[in-house]
């Protein structure tokens, strides 16, 4: 039996590698979410590292004053062509000596140069604070009088919002291949074969329907695993190349984590390969198979959106355990994982049930035709 299964796997892989549409679909579904991840990461890090244009035009009589030097110390440069105008009304020496506020007008397009305007305002307010501090010191007022409240902020959530967002996207990245990478191939191997009339000659060969289905299921499973490996590798590379440090993103995604996640996904890949074949054989046509398999593919994506509490509550179910294990790994959580005995058992039962159904269905194929 095993040699026949091997022959079928070899043929199916050869056939799949020559099927541009199946390969394109597999690549697309595998890569689409890592690309989404890339966009999200870049948006986060670019926002944080945005460089403000600090070029301004300084107007007024008092350009050599303490204001000028303070702005200069804060990285501002002065140019006649700058889009933001900073005008000092009067002179600072006159204002300071008479204890009258020095009026400064920051003029700029608040649509295009808001960042520069805000940066100038921030710098000038900090200068104002420095001057206030100096005046209090002159009056011999202690610092604890000046700042009666010492407010400190502490984050009670160890995982930042950014980290959680990235982990959500990563989980989708990993579940997407098992939902869709092998889909096109599974349908091509079953409903597609039926439509191309190649199933009947195959069924007339001295090979059991169970061997045929195991061969097709293993092929779909292998392609799905390759898709998963790609998705994990690409996501890992993106995480390592994007400057996430300093952006409150703390994800543990090295080689060991990647290997762990790949292993966690193995049972789910087998389950979805078997389910896709069952759905494709149940369908009356290739088109119907695509529709049903597409709906089936929504299941893992739905699970990835569930809350952590729900995931943990139902971790005896296939997919729930996998999602929980992936999140735990990415967070470098020291919480020991529950051995997936029940989940694994259910996964095995689903695969066996699908194989039983598909081989029974295959026996009826010629009758259905």
């Amino acid at each position, binding site marked *: 039996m095993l040699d026949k299964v091997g*022959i079928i796997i070899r*043929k199916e892989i*050869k056939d799949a590698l020559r099927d541009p549409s199946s390969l394109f679909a597999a690549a697309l579904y595998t890569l689409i979410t890592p690309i989404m991840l890339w966009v999200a990461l870049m948006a986060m890090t670019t926002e944080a590292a945005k460089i403000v244009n600090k070029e301004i035009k300084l107007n007024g009589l008092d350009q050599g004053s303490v204001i000028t030097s303070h702005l200069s110390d804060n990285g501002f440069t002065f140019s006649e062509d700058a889009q933001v105008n900073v005008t000092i009304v009067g002179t600072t020496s006159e204002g300071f000596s008479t204890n009258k506020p020095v009026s400064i007008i920051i003029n700029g397009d608040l649509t295009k140069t808001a960042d520069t305007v805000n940066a100038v305002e921030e710098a000038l307010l900090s200068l104002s604070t420095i001057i206030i501090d100096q005046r209090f010191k002159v009056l011999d007022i202690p610092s604890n009088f000046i700042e009666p409240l010492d407010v400190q902020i502490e984050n009670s959530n160890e995982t930042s919002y950014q980290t959680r967002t990235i982990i959500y996207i990563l989980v989708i990245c990993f579940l997407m291949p098992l939902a869709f990478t092998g889909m096109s191939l599974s349908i091509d191997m079953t409903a597609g074969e039926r439509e*191309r009339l190649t199933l*009947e*000659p195959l*069924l*007339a060969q*001295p*090979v059991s329907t169970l061997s045929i289905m195991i061969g097709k299921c293993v092929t779909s499973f292998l392609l799905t695993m390759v898709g998963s490996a790609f998705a994990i590798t690409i996501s890992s590379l993106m995480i390592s190349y994007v400057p996430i440090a300093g952006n409150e993103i703390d994800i543990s995604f090295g080689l060991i984590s990647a290997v762990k996640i790949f292993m966690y996904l193995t049972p789910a890949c087998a389950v979805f390969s078997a389910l896709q074949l069952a759905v494709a054989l149940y369908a009356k046509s290739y088109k119907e198979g695509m529709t049903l398999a597409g709906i089936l593919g929504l299941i893992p994506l739905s699970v990835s959106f569930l809350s952590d509490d729900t995931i943990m509550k139902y971790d005896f179910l296939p997919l729930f355990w996998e999602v929980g294990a992936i999140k735990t790994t990415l967070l470098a959580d020291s919480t020991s994982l529950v051995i997936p005995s029940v989940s694994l058992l259910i996964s095995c039962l689903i695969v066996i049930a699908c194989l039983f159904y598909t081989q029974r269905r295959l026996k009826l194929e010629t009758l259905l035709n």
Partner: protein
Amino acid sequence: MLNINSISKSYGDVTAVQDLTFSAGENSITTLLGANGSGKTTTLRIIAGLISPDQGSVSLNGYDVESHTLEARKQLGIFPDQFGLYQRLTVVEHLDYFGSLHGLKDENLRKAIENTVQILEMEDIADRRCEGFSQGQRMKVALGRAFVHSPKVLVLDEPTRGLDIFNVRLLRQLLRNLRDKGVCILMSCHVMAEIEDLSDKVVFIANGQKKAEGSPKELIEKSGASNLEEAFVKYVTDIGGGNVG
């Protein structure tokens, strides 16, 4: 040797085959002749073990198709009414796949493939993928797939359909050669000239029932007709059931 013993098959209220009995021996070509929907394809599918009969039995070289399905299929080469080729596989890969499924390996497999390619004059297309093949080329591949493993029984469902005269001649010659090598050949066909020329034995079927069987000459003589076509029409419409010879 192929023995069909009193098989019947119904699909709901429709009876496709009813109490059909006949045999096809080695070194002979037996043809099932019947109108469309007479039960020929159902009979061939039952012989291939693709459909279980409601009653009766089929044996291929002594192996019962129902109880020893895989052993029986090893004796069989099948040429279905639709060629059903894998578009992305080459001719050699087709032969390799189906030969392997029949247990051929290594040198035996390689020789079987070479031999099949040579017999069917497929050297020029051997390494080409089947996508875009002409009807004749597709027929050759399907036929090669059916006999690459040297089956004892070859079943063909309307093999000459859609073929040009050159391919019909090639097929005819090939079937004669296989018969001479001891292969038991059973085919369904509509072309009277083909049947008269090739068949050692003809089985007339109508409404899933056997109406007559015998050599073309015997059937013509017994019916009093001038040719096989007339004999067939007479048996199916006038005379009723009966065996010749």
